[in-house]
């Protein structure tokens, strides 16, 4: 115990003093800076080229640092931020509907079920406006009104319209903006781009991150890279569930590499289940497709009122359009009159699960609800609906082979985003000096639940407007550190460890494909660590994950060789980490004996089935510390003090 207290004392979020609204301004006014001549002498590695990674790499290079940028795809433009559809929040108040920095801060804190740091979230809301200005200057074609000014739409968890969008492709347009800024710096030689490279370890020298070991995915060669600081923006770990809305190659391995080198993994159990995804329809399925939350602006969610209608639908005898208006249960509008179809994602997902568990699901598996646009088409006309959501409707039709203009869409919740991630302080630095973590990969701003259109905001806030400042406070003390040789023993050791792990995997030569084991892990996660969690279920999950770990390390089969392009080897390395993340998620969910945001423990709910927080016991971020292979991790706590907001039970009813 003494040891734990000793480590405990070290958790310092480094939140600046002063009133909430002045913290960031004061920080910037007093932080250390690096002068232009010294910037040229400093190298920074940025892993990942999504919104956070690309914007950080571009901004740092513009400032004069030398940047080495890494991505696993063939081009930095492919990172999964590109798939974000609906929009990006900012507190511009262009619609004159009462928005403000404080209101965006408050909505985000409340939406996160009071499990995020106030200072971080306030800063996020503050810089949100700069992001929109920046993107417009880059030529991002946001939607506009006829008067030529920017248009907004509303999103879940807010009563104002503060979401900026570019059709249903906002993530794509913002990422291409960041990618173009990054490309400009690559062209100038300030960023050296390594595409089709995957980081396999962080190199730590005398307690500071000084480089990485990466595998060239085309040749299989393991290479060493030095930098004065390492920034990781590698996204979330939703693919632990096998089926998720994440891209196929999205993974949590970078996070686990940081964790094993001493960075805390915070709140791993906070995973977001998105309410509007296309339902699962077969065993061959490889991923789930999200239908943007923006659809809930005009679409109405319902299931039949009568159980016999639901049964007929499950048998394929009735269609949605056959059910008369009076026999439809618009359950979100019924349960949450104030927010209706625009309740936050966690609330909407649980409500769908509740109806389907009660037998009212509307497809063959009974695991789907309707998202219906017939009212919107009547009210606005088909053309207006098509202009707003056309590409989403097309996407749906191509996958499901049904026309959503005529038959209501069928949707069901799926794993979408992970609020948990690597612990960072106010400066976005992890518990390892010189190692920074940005975007979805960190845990910082969304608490236990993220609001729609806030992921893009956070990724770009971190990359454009926060990290480029805070990293200087660290680098200012590193200006006299020369570039180090990658022949140092720490680099050699790290490379040897990576090679040994790969050799061990290649030598198993068992009977099962990586995917077959990953699928098994996914089913376990969805069943026991999904939307409804219980003590017994989580204990079962931990036991099952241990079996899966054993099966993987004794029976996986990887064809080919390690010194060649080998997709199965890439997947196996990622799955080895997903198994450990799954374990960590289950442990974290087990200790958190309350329900909050995306974490719902069935033992802790109100009589109406709403989440029941236990503020007196669980008002902290759980920070998991790696203690060695096969050793149980230790959980430390960062207390969350609410100085500026009063914690309330989230109420979206009135």
């Amino acid at each position, binding site marked *: 115990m003494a040891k734990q207290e000793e480590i405990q004392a070290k958790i310092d979020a480094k939140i600046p003093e002063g009133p909430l609204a002045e913290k960031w301004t004061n920080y910037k006014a007093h932080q250390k800076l690096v002068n232009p001549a010294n910037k040229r002498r400093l190298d920074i590695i940025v892993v990942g080229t999504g919104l956070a990674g690309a914007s950080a790499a571009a901004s740092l290079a513009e400032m004069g640092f030398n940047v080495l940028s890494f991505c696993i795809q063939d081009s930095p433009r492919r990172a999964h931020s590109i798939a974000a559809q609906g929009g990006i929040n900012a507190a511009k108040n262009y619609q004159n509907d009462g928005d403000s920095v404080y209101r965006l801060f408050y909505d985000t804190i409340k939406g996160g079920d009071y499990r995020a740091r106030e200072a971080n979230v306030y800063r996020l809301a503050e810089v949100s406006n*700069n992001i929109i200005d920046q993107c417009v200057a880059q*030529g991002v074609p946001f939607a*506009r009104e006829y008067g030529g000014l920017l248009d907004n739409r509303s999103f879940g968890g807010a009563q104002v319209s503060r979401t900026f969008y570019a059709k249903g492709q906002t993530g794509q347009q913002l990422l291409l903006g960041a990618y173009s800024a990054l490309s400009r710096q690559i062209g100038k030689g300030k960023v050296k781009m390594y595409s089709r490279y995957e980081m396999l370890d962080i190199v730590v020298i005398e307690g500071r991150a000084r480089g990485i070991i990466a595998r060239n995915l085309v040749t299989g060669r393991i290479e060493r890279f030095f930098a004065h600081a390492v920034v990781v923006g590698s996204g979330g770990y939703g693919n632990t569930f096998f089926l998720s809305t994440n891209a196929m190659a999205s993974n949590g391995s970078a996070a686990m590499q940081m964790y094993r080198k001493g960075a805390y993994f915070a709140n791993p159990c906070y995973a977001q289940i998105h309410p509007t995804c296309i339902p699962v329809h077969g065993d061959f399925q490889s991923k789930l497709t999200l239908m943007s939350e923006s659809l809930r602006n005009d679409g109405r969610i319902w299931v039949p009122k009568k159980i016999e209608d639901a049964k007929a639908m499950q048998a394929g005898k009735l269609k949605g359009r056959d059910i008369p208006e009076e026999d439809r249960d618009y359950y979100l509008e019924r349960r949450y009159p104030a927010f209706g179809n625009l309740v936050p994602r966690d609330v909407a997902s649980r409500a769908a699960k509740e109806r389907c568990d009660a037998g009212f699901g509307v497809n063959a598996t009974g695991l789907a609800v309707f998202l219906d646009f017939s009212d919107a088409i009547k009210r606005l006309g088909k053309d207006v609906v098509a202009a707003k959501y056309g590409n989403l409707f097309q996407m749906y039709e191509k996958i499901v082979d049904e026309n959503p203009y005529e038959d209501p869409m069928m949707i069901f919740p799926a794993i979408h985003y992970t609020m948990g991630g690597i612990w960072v302080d106010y400066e976005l630095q992890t518990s390892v000096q010189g190692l920074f973590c940005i975007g979805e990969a960190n845990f910082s701003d969304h608490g236990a639940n993220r609001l729609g259109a806030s992921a893009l905001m956070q990724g770009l806030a971190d990359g454009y407007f926060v990290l480029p400042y805070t990293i200087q406070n660290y680098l200012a003390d590193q200006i006299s550190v020369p570039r180090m040789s990658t022949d140092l023993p720490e680099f050699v050791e790290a490379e040897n460890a990576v090679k040994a792990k790969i050799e061990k995997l290649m030598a198993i030569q068992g009977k099962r494909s990586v995917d077959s084991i990953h699928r098994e892990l996914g089913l376990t996660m969805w069943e026991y660590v999904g939307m409804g969690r219980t003590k017994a279920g989580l204990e079962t999950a931990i036991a099952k994950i241990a079996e899966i770990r054993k099966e993987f390390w004794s029976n996986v089969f990887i064809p080919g060789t390690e010194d060649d392009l080998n997709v199965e080897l890439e997947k196996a390395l990622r799955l080895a980490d997903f198994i450990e993340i799954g374990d960590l998620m289950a442990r974290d969910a087990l200790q958190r004996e309350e329900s909050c945001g995306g974490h719902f423990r069935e033992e802790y709910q109100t009589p109406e089935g709403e989440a029941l927080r236990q503020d007196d016991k669980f008002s902290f971020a759980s920070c998991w510390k790696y203690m060695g292979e096969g050793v149980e991790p230790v959980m430390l706590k960062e207390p969350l003090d609410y100085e500026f907001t009063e914690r309330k039970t989230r109420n979206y009813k009135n």
Partner: protein
Amino acid sequence: MEKTINITLKVWRQAGPKAKGGFETYKLDNISTDSSFLEMLDVLNEKLINERKEPVVFDHDCREGICGMCSLYINGHPHGPDSAITTCQLHMRKFKDGETITVEPWRSNAFPVIKDLMVDRRAYDKIIQAGGFVSVNTGGVPDANAIPIPKKDADEAMDAASCIGCGACAAACKNGSAMLFVAAKVSQLALLPQGKVEAARRAKAMVAKMDELGFGNCTNTGACAAECPKSVSLSNIARLNREFICAKFKD
């Protein structure tokens, strides 16, 4: 209701960039028509792995038609027989029972094969690096609403900007030209006041880089726009030509 079909696949296999490639034939039974084309390839790969053979390598990532990573030439068409979609959005219901399906990598000099169906498309990144941006640094920009932009221009810029950089246009073109790709970016930025300042320089730099990288010339056959998964319009090429000629006149 779920239907299944039996198919024969002829897949291009090539061990490396310099290796000699060839078609391999595989038979697959009971493929659900609800599965996507890539899920069908997953089934093939699972089968190959169970037979202790090397799976077919192909690029893919988001599997929802936006990342631009998937890049298969199916039955003679980039992204397959259906229109306005990427390979990952193609579903097996578009094929008949008993059909033989030919799968090849992108066919273009500028996109060399890495392995099997995976190609190197970094040439597109290099074109963007040559000028596909607005030269603004982070910070110090005007308020987003400071410059009103007519909705029509913004919408048109958005249509051009919907390019996903997959390479289907160059792969479809008999000349291997990247004109549609270049035109989409040049158009997007030329239509917006923010991009207008550098329009001439951008058009010249991107076209010069395209030529340097070994892409062919445009003869307006329109195959690019016909095969583009995002329906990027051929009119963008006209705009690029206009921008390019104007820029040259000013020299």
